[in-house]
């Protein structure tokens, strides 16, 4: 069970907001994370506590294919992003770098900024105060990648994977 505080964002949060293009010259997690969400709130990395969550609306991560975006989010301590829906490339990239994404339609209406919520990945349930929001559990293959901190580490331990 993961527990943390919520940082809330709206619909269509694009990768230019998550990590503006001028920082793509960096590749290290620490420098990238200092600019996470700078498009909306330049103080965001300083406010986040390790293990917090982002809760957002639809189409989170739309736009560029920059893997720097999920690296920045993970680097500033965000444990998981829960959104109504995600953009396709961002979804793949996040899993590949070990950032947990949870697609939970309707989540925005149940939580507000600063709420403490709990997430049970094993049962696929988010507990937000009185509310229990169910989500589709991730397949074991993806859970394995996330537990190893990303695809590259996972491959080292499981060299003969095939997609399921």
């Amino acid at each position, binding site marked *: 069970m993961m527990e943390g505080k919520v940082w809330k964002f709206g619909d269509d949060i694009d990768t230019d907001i998550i990590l503006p293009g001028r920082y793509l*010259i960096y*590749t290290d997690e620490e420098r990238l994370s200092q600019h996470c969400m*700078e498009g909306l709130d330049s103080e965001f990395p300083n406010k986040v506590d390790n293990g917090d969550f982002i809760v957002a609306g639809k189409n989170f991560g739309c736009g560029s*294919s920059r893997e720097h975006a999920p690296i920045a989010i993970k680097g500033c301590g965000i444990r998981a992003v829960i959104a109504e829906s995600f953009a396709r490339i961002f979804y*793949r990239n996040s899993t590949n770098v070990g950032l947990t994404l949870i697609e939970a339609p309707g989540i925005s209406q149940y939580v507000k900024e600063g709420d403490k919520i709990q997430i049970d990945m094993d049962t696929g349930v988010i507990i937000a105060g009185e509310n229990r929001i169910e989500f589709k559990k991730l397949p074991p293959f993806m859970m394995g990648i996330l537990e190893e901190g990303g695809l*590259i580490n996972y491959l*080292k331990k499981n060299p003969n994977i095939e997609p399921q």
Partner: protein
Amino acid sequence: MTKAEKILAKASKKDKVEAGDIIIADIDIAMTHDLTGPLAVESFEKIGTGKVWDPSKIVIPFDHQVPADSLDSANNHILMREFVRSQKIENFYDVKQGVCHQILPELGHVLPGTVIVGADSHTCTHGALGAFATGIGSTDMAMVFATGKLWFKVPETIRFNITGELASNVSAKDVILHILGETGADGATYKACEYAGETVEKMSISDRMVLSNMAIEMGGKTGMVESDEKTYQYLEGRVKGGKSTINRLKAEQKRFITDLESPSLEIRDIDVDELEPLLSCPHNVDNVKPASEVDVEIDQVFLGSCTNGRIEDLRDAARILKGETIADSTRMLVIPASRETYMKALDEGLIKIFVEAGALVSAPCCGPCLGGHTGIIGPGETSLSTSNRNFKGRQGSPEGEVYLCSAKVAAKSAIEGRISVPEL
């Protein structure tokens, strides 16, 4: 099957695939550039296979931070040049060549019926020549470098059946902005987009590339057009193997045509007879309005990018700018998308027209499109741009605003100093 299904079936050595299937496809071309390349190389080195799967199938152009504008970008360039050298990458295009999505087709790397992945979201552009082309991240690219394969979920397809005649002040850009406005920023997520119909058949390859380029702005996995005589004419003199390659492609053309009764296909009819010049307004690409209804002063005009930096765009703009002067309150930046485009523009006298009108002309690169290099806008400034994204902060300050338009609207607006529609 749809075109996307047929290409992915071939690439995964299956007779049949259907939307929703997870397949492993052989990759024909893998592209990464100076900004997404360093992360891909770092990940590739962690995998530890040593050598890339096929140095003849990897394309590496430098286009985002060219020439290097900081020590960090210079270091990225050095890292990538070293990767190219040590891996014997055959298709390396250093700072002189142009924007990746323009030079891949120009230099013959894009063939109908192939699978192309690029560590850049606008890789979907190459669908204009009938390829299945899609953007991926750097770790996925590292996997491709190591194995030559990648897993895909076979997408459903939305086919936009476009009919009607475009008015003289309307462009392919307006067609795709119209489609985006109707579809929404996530309306095609996980889906392949296909553009068909009499209007698309009449379009040049450049115009088709405009449509394909912006499929990602509605979440699309790729944006494809059926290959035809125009495609093969474009490929002549560009592809390896010359005539015999073209003849082979022609012979297998029918193999990849979408079956209109495919269960995973949705057809949407779009009529462009009444279409007028459009704008995508801040801060979302699907916030589309008629340009005639928006009266905004502009600080900077950018003509260029993988969406509208081609010779046809420069011609459209030069026709309007010839003998005119750009407004004192407005600066205009013209960046041809490639060396080939730049040379043609020089030969045709277009560059002189731009400079005489008061525009700055730069060497081919991505320019201000993603706010990381030249032409960054400051707080409170407004940019009118022929590129593909207007997200908050995309071209610099988050307090700046970006409007997207065609080359025609960009040129007319530069003269007026405010958003303006060229006459018919």
